[in-house]
């Protein structure tokens, strides 16, 4: 008999498993992937202090800790339905039904697509798929590719591809269409990159100067107008070039590109086809909240958190009895924030189960989430704190604090 079922063995789910198992709960974690770690598995980047963040090592550390505390981790299991029962939840999985008093949904995020004509050709993949193939499965995605969509995630993953010996010919923008939002507009993309200019020492180039004075930023601002763009780690980032179409008969053979005006409209006479054998499309992340919706949880629409997120309070409790959430399902942030949230959820669930004798660790853990958020290397959106506050207010209408 288990006390808690956690859906998702990523940074949030595993951290929650550890925190709750330490309080004596019997915990099972299920995950759709064939090994635990979630998005941690793909992550490899250099922190501002010069240390490398190796997600594979973090995933192994969390998995080992959880197992040593008696947590049962079941991989290759998909959850396709949830129903409330009198004393908890009946969870329908590809390995049969599981009955459990308390449930934590830590399903993370899914990649948003930005469609490009020809994107259904074999050889086109999301940037996250390229990351998993490269860093987890060690499969070469191709010889020479083009990344369509310039954002903090796609820049970091392009660097990972390069570290693995895969050539990224260039990074360009998606075509401006009804469904591309601002991802196809050079000025909007530059603005969003400027927000992460503080990452320059780690993610971009090693310079330590202050925000507006940084040569990298000046370079970036100027680079919008000259045609060649700028390079990071020798990967050309062309904010004034758009992908018109991915070309090929039975697989990717190239990308038809054109120069664009500052508003994203193509300039006549600048079209050319560049050869490529793979294409990565990067459209950002949005919370993967389908199970919370099935469970009947109310939502908030918060663009700074990546879209619709299930309502929850600081203890990661939702308005639905016995249902908790943690990690990127609550908003797109870094793995470290997800881990801190997981710890909160684990302690909060232990409390609900009557196993938390001292509540100090829970309030400390809630504080820790804020501290980690403040120091996050990758801040996906400038208005995260305001977005979190809105979710908190909306949740307060459902749950007394």
């Amino acid at each position, binding site marked *: 008999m288990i006390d808690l079922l956690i859906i998702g063995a990523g940074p949030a789910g595993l951290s929650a498993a550890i925190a709750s198992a330490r309080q004596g709960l019997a915990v099972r974690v299920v995950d*759709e992937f064939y090994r635990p770690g979630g998005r941690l598995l793909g992550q490899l980047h250099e922190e501002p202090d010069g240390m490398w963040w190796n997600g594979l090592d973090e995933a192994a550390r969390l998995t080992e800790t959880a197992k040593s505390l008696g947590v049962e981790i079941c991989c290759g299991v*998909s*959850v*396709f*339905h*949830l129903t409330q029962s009198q004393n908890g939840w009946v969870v*329908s999985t*590809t390995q049969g039904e599981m009955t459990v008093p308390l449930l934590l949904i830590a399903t993370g995020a*899914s990649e*948003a*697509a930005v*469609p*490009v*004509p*020809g*994107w*259904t*050709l074999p050889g086109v993949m999301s940037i996250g798929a390229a990351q998993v193939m490269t860093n987890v499965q060690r499969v070469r995605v191709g010889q020479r590719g083009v990344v369509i969509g310039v954002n903090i995630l796609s820049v970091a993953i392009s660097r990972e591809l390069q570290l693995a010996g895969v050539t990224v010919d260039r990074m360009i923008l998606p075509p401006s*269409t*009804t*469904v591309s*939002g601002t991802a196809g507009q050079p000025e909007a993309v530059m603005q969003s990159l400027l927000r992460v200019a503080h990452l320059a020492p780690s993610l971009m180039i090693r310079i330590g100067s202050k925000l507006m004075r940084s040569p990298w930023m000046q370079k970036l601002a100027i680079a919008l107008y000259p045609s060649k763009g700028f390079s990071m780690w020798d990967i050309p980032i062309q904010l004034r070039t758009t992908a*018109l*179409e*991915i*070309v090929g008969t039975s697989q990717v053979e190239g990308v038809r590109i054109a120069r664009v005006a500052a508003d994203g409209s193509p300039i006549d006479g600048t079209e050319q086809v560049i050869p490529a054998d793979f294409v990565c499309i990067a459209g950002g992340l*949005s919370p993967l*909240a*389908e*199970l919370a*919706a*099935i469970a009947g949880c*109310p*939502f*908030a*629409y918060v663009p700074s958190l990546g*879209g*619709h997120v299930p309502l929850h309070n600081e203890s990661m409790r939702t308005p639905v009895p016995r249902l908790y959430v943690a990690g990127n399902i609550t908003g797109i942030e870094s793995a470290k924030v997800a881990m801190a949230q997981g710890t909160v959820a684990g302690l909060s669930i232990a409390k609900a189960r009557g196993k938390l004798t001292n509540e100090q660790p829970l309030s400390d853990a809630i504080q820790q989430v804020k501290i980690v958020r403040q120091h996050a290397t990758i801040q996906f959106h400038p208005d995260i704190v305001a977005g979190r506050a809105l979710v908190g207010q*909306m949740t307060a209408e459902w749950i007394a604090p």
Partner: protein
Amino acid sequence: MESHPLIICRCEEVTLAELVETAQTYQCTARELKLRTRAGMGCCGGRTCRTMIDQVIQQVTGQAPSHTVPLGYQPPIRPVSFHTLGGHRA
């Protein structure tokens, strides 16, 4: 211009042009757009195109996104065999 039509819903092969045209004609909700075109009703359950259907409605009709999730989710949220759902193999 494009030799490849821009497909939005791969399962049901619904193009962007078809979605925009339908949204313009009927000035409808995301749900109605889904029902009229079948976009998002294929075997994957709209896992890729759901947000794009929402965006078409926002851009074409000017409807602001609300806190309610526009397109509902129905179980099973993953493609599963009838056997998994409780059927019996012959």
